[in-house]
C-alpha cells in the first residue's frame, strides 16, 4: 500500500494543531485533510473515505467522543486516534472502550506519533488482507463441488444448506464412493465455523491402537515412541468441525470415549493430566447399517442417538443416472486441465455406456474411469474403447431363467437408461410405443 493511498483526517479546533499535523503527514506522503469541528469532519467523511482519523477529544459543540461514534456509523473501518490533553485521559480511556484505536496526549512526541500511525496502517493493511482472504475462502468453498441436477441430489443440497447454519451433529449415510466427505465439507464450508479447520478422521483406516492417540494427542513420554507432545484431532478441530468417516468401524472403547468428549467437550491428552476444553461440531458418515449394529450390540445405542440427530442420505449413482453425464463432464474438464489434454467431450456411445453401467463404486468409480480414459484417450473426445475394461463388457445379463423375466428386466434397464423416455426406449427395443406400453402394463412396471 502506498502512503498516498492512505488517507488521514485531522479534526481539531486549534488551527496550529491542524496545520502542523497536516504538514507533518503531508511530508510523509499521506493524503491529508483537516476539519475544525465535527460537522466539517462528517462532511469530509461523506466526500471520500479515510483510513485514519485523528480526533481531538475536546472540541466546542460535538465532542471528540461523540464524533468518533458518528464516524464509526459512517465507516466502521476507520481507525480513530484520540488526541487529548493530560486532563482528559479518562475520556480517552472511554474512547478506547468505544472502539478507538489508541490515544495520544498533547504535546505529542514525534516518535510516538510516527509509531502510532505506522501501527494503525499495519492493522488496517492486515484487516484488508484478512477480508480479501475470507472472500477467497468463500469463493473456494462454495458448495459447487457437489455436482448433480437430479431431484435426489437437489434434495441433498437443500438439506446441506438447511443443516449447515445450525450447529447440530450430522450423520451422512450412503454407499462407498457417493461423496460423503464432500457433503461434510459443504456443510462445514457453509457453517459459521468455516474459517476454522475441518479435521477428517477415518475410523476405518487408522490402526486401532493408534486411533486413541490420533484423537486425543499425547504428552511426551506417554508411551514408547512418544518423543514429543502432540496435539490430537480433537484439539486441532477446536473452533471447527471434526468429521468421522466410517464411524461404524469405531471400536467399543473409543465409542465410550467419543461419547464422553462430545457431551463434555473436554478431554485430556494421553499421559497428561491437564483438562483441555474444545469446541467443535461433529459430522460423521457411514455406509454400514448402524441400526443393525446397535441391535447386535457392536455399536452403542447412546452414541448412535447422540450422532444421529440430523441425517443426510446420499443416493447411489445408479439411482440418479441423469447426474452421470454432468459428473462425467465435470471430471473430464478437471482432468483435461490437470493433464493439459485437449479432450473436451465424450462420444455418444461412450456416454451411453457410462449411463448404463451400475457403478457399484459410485462417483469415485466414475471419476477413476474418466481419469483412466483421459490417460489412454486421444483428442478430441473420450471413445468407448478408452473406458475401463469392465465397462466395455456387455451389460450383465439378468439372472433369470424364464424368457419373460429376461424380457422384463431388459425393459426395466432400457427404461432406466432413457429416464423412462418411451419413444427412445421403444426405438432401442425396436418395438412400437403401443407394444412398449402394453409390456409395461403386463409386467406392472412403475417409474
Amino acid at each position, binding site marked *: 500500500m502506498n502512503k498516498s493511498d492512505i488517507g488521514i483526517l485531522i479534526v481539531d479546533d*486549534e488551527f*496550529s494543531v491542524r496545520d*502542523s499535523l497536516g*504538514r507533518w503527514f503531508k*511530508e510523509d506522503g499521506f493524503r491529508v485533510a483537516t476539519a475544525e469541528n465535527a460537522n466539517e469532519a462528517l462532511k469530509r467523511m461523506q466526500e471520500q473515505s479515510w483510513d485514519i482519523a485523528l480526533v481531538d477529544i475536546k472540541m466546542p459543540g460535538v465532542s471528540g467522543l461523540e464524533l468518533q461514534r458518528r464516524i464509526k456509523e459512517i465507516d466502521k473501518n476507520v481507525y480513530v486516534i484520540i488526541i487529548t490533553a493530560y486532563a482528559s485521559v479518562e475520556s480517552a480511556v472511554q474512547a478506547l472502550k468505544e472502539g478507538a484505536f489508541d490515544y495520544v496526549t498533547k*504535546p505529542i*512526541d*514525534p*516518535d510516538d506519533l510516527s509509531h502510532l500511525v505506522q501501527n494503525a496502517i499495519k492493522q488496517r493493511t492486515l484487516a484488508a488482507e484478512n477480508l480479501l482472504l475470507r472472500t477467497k475462502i468463500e469463493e473456494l468453498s462454495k458448495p459447487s463441488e457437489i455436482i448433480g441436477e437430479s431431484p435426489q441430489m437437489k434434495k441433498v443440497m437443500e438439506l446441506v444448506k438447511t443443516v449447515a447454519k445450525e450447529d447440530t451433529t450430522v450423520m451422512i449415510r450412503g454407499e462407498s464412493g457417493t461423496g460423503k466427505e464432500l457433503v461434510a465439507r459443504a456443510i462445514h464450508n457453509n457453517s459459521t465455523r468455516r474459517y476454522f479447520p475441518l479435521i477428517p478422521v477415518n475410523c476405518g483406516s487408522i490402526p486401532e491402537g493408534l486411533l486413541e492417540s490420533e484423537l486425543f494427542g499425547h504428552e511426551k513420554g506417554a508411551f514408547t515412541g512418544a518423543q514429543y507432545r502432540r496435539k490430537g484431532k480433537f484439539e486441532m478441530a477446536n473452533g471447527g468441525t471434526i468429521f468421522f468417516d466410517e464411524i461404524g468401524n469405531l471400536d467399543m472403547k473409543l465409542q465410550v470415549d467419543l461419547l464422553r468428549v462430545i457431551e463434555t467437550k473436554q478431554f485430556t491428552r494421553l499421559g497428561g493430566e491437564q483438562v483441555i476444553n474444545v469446541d467443535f461440531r461433529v459430522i460423521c458418515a457411514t455406509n454400514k447399517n448402524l441400526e443393525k449394529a446397535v441391535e447386535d450390540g457392536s455399536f452403542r445405542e447412546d452414541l448412535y442417538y447422540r450422532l444421529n440427530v440430523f441425517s443426510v442420505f446420499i443416493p447411489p449413482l445408479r439411482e440418479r443416472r441423469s447426474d452421470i453425464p454432468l459428473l462425467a463432464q465435470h471430471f473430464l474438464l478437471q482432468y483435461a486441465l490437470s493433464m493439459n489434454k485437449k479432450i473436451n467431450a465424450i462420444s455418444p456411445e461412450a456416454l451411453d455406456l457410462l449411463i448404463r453401467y451400475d457403478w457399484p463404486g459410485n462417483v469415485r468409480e466414475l471419476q477413476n474411469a474418466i481419469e483412466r480414459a483421459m490417460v489412454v484417450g486421444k483428442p478430441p473426445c473420450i471413445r468407448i474403447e478408452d473406458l475401463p475394461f469392465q465397462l466395455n463388457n456387455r451389460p450383465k445379463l439378468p439372472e433369470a431363467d424364464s424368457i419373460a423375466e429376461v424380457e422384463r428386466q431388459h425393459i426395466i434397464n432400457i427404461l432406466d437408461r432413457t429416464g423412462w423416455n418411451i419413444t427412445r426406449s421403444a426405438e432401442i427395443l425396436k418395438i412400437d410405443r403401443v407394444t412398449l406400453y402394453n409390456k409395461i402394463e403386463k409386467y406392472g412396471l412403475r417409474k
Partner: protein
Amino acid sequence: MSAIAVVPIGSVAEGLLTRLAKSIGETFRSGVSHQALRFDPSVAFDSYRNQYNSTMFLSLLLNGLDETEGRIVGVTDYDLFVPVLTFVFGEAQLNGRVAVVSSFRLRPEYYGLRADRALLEGRIEKEAIHEVGHTFGLLHCVDPTCVMHSSTYAEDIDLKGSSPCRRCLFQLFPADSAATVDFFQ
C-alpha cells in the same frame, strides 16, 4: 535553481554556516548566500514550554523575503517546537520558500554523551538539506540512506546519508539525463 539564503537565528558559528551554504548549494545546484536575520527571534519564544515556535519562525522568515528572492533557511541553536509536538528538529514549507533547522537536540551532550563537533555538524547539514528538500516538494523517502528519510531520533540521522537518493534526485532534476539514466538503471 533559484538562490537560497542561509540565515543564522541566535548564535551560529560562521564556519558552520559556510559549510551548510556549500553543501546546500551542491545538493540543489543553486547559488547560496549568507544573510543577516531581519527579525527579533524572541517573539517566537514560548515561556511556558521554554522553546521557540518553529512555525512562527517560518512565517517571520517568509515575511522578510521579497518577491525577487528565492528560498531561505534559518539555522538556530534554539529548541524548536510546533504546538502539537514536543519538539521538532526542523520545519519547512512543503513546496514553499522557507525552512528552519535547529541544532539544539542534535547535540550529543543533550543526551548525556560527550560533545562531538564533527557529528553535530554532520547532523545539522543533513537536517538542513532535508528541510530545504521539502521546500522543493520532496516528501519523506523510504530509502534509509536518503537524506529525505524521516528521522525522529538524532541517531536516526546518523544512519542516513547527506544526499538525496536517485529517486529523489530524479524528482529534483527530471530533465537531467544523468539522474534519469541512473534512476532507471
